[in-house]
């Protein structure tokens, strides 16, 4: 049985660095995935997540427990990512240009056993990843927060300091654009 989050937090507060690492190991993949999809840049995503985690470790006293620990980490990483994007670092990178040259995304877990279907699923996944990277920053962030991280509209609006309606509008635009870009893959899937 994994150690409860609360017990780990107690250990961290007592100065146990290993406890922090145990806790972070649970959330780092999800956090990295979220930041990667916002930045479309693996190197930048690692830098941002690492910086956020070091900042969180140093400033653990600021965690009051009114939100989940992941949400707290997410907000720190998210703010750093937003600053990075606002400084214009997220415009064009090798990662976004060479989406198919680096480490490939994992295949989705529930692809069928049919090799053709799996290949198509993978192709669609890669196309989707490229399409997400091509979204404008605001739409990409909203789409990632909602569809990749599963945050509620209310929470997204609070983090972005905007109305829920604005979040819905951004998400709708993002989905429409992605659908348009993925249409060839989606049509072939529908007509199969």
């Amino acid at each position, binding site marked *: 049985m994994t150690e409860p989050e609360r017990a780990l937090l107690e250990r961290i507060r007592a100065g146990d*660095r290993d406890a922090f690492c145990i806790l972070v190991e649970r959330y780092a993949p999800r956090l990295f995935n979220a930041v990667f999809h916002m930045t479309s840049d693996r190197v930048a995503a690692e830098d941002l997540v*690492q910086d956020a985690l070091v900042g969180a*470790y140093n400033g*653990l006293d600021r965690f009051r427990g009114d939100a989940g620990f992941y949400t707290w980490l997410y907000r720190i990483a998210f703010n750093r990512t937003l600053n990075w994007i606002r400084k214009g670092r997220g415009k064009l990178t090798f990662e976004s240009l060479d989406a198919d040259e680096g480490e490939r995304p994992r295949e989705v877990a529930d692809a069928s056993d049919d090799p053709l279907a799996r290949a198509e699923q993978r192709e669609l*996944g890669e196309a*989707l990843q490229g399409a997400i990277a091509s979204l404008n920053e605001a739409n990409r962030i909203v789409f990632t927060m909602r*569809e990749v991280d599963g945050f509620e509209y209310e929470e997204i609006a609070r983090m972005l300091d905007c109305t829920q309606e604005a979040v819905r509008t951004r998400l709708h635009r993002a*989905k429409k654009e992605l659908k348009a870009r993925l249409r060839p893959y989606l049509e072939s899937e529908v007509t199969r």
Partner: protein
Amino acid sequence: MNEHDHIRDQLFAYLEDPTAHREVTAHVVECASCAADLAITRRANEAFAKVPQAPLPEGFMERLRARLPEEVRREPLPPTEISSSTRRGRRAFWTRTVLGIAAVFALAFGGLLLTMPKPAPSPFAEVAERSALIVVGHDLELGDALLSNTAPLRLGSALETTNHPAVIRLGEDGSLRLDAGTRVRVLALFRASETTILKIDVALGRVWVEDGTRTRVIIHTPDALMGSPGAALDVRVTPGGTHVRAWRGTIALNRLRNRRLTVLQEGQQAVIDAKGTRVGNLSPVVQQDPWYQWNRRLQVPSQASGPLETPPLGKASPFPLPWMK
């Protein structure tokens, strides 16, 4: 917007809450085209639920653990994260070291440095220990990646390719392409303002540099120092001398024997050896067929498998190395 466009604009919202969009329900029963689009929209939603996961870079936790201070601090976050006594000591060391290197380098590339962005008041406060995406076995022609890894790039890092070429991506806009059998070592790595400066020592083989506005790559060979602000160049180090080809931009060559500076323009090549520096133009045929395009056919020297020695900082290049004889 006609009726069909109006319906299609609501399809995502309809799938989220069909009861709130009854006109869509009524329309798609009679309109085959919009019904097909609804099926595509549903399929899109399914795809969105399966966005591929980006795996955590290998070694992520080890690198994080190394960055965490041993003692938990409970004071508010400092303005900069480099603030523990260890890091202060390290920073002072790095500052002295990097300033020393910068001073030497300024002599060699005085004119070149003048064109670089003006450093911040504390230009070397942040020592860049960058993580680099190192794609080993990556072939630009075939587009395959046999192995990729994100590794910290720090002073003294020795990088050696074996049977495959490699691409080292330096993050924002810089990359190094190393031929199969190439050995390089990081001699200096620091950040001046927004610019990362990487100085590498090419021990053997060929390096192709493609760097942009925020990364400068300086190449140190037995014969010359080369500055490449925003340029692409091909360097081949052989026991007889150093061969350089400028594919894009201007290359500053500083011959180590007599510190004579030669500027290599785009489309030129140079050989630097005991006889001096000889510059010539690349023939159009060569320009169309740069080395990096066919270097996967390069013969890998069989003796290029010994351990890579790391010289102390500030010392001269470790040539001749055993495999250079």
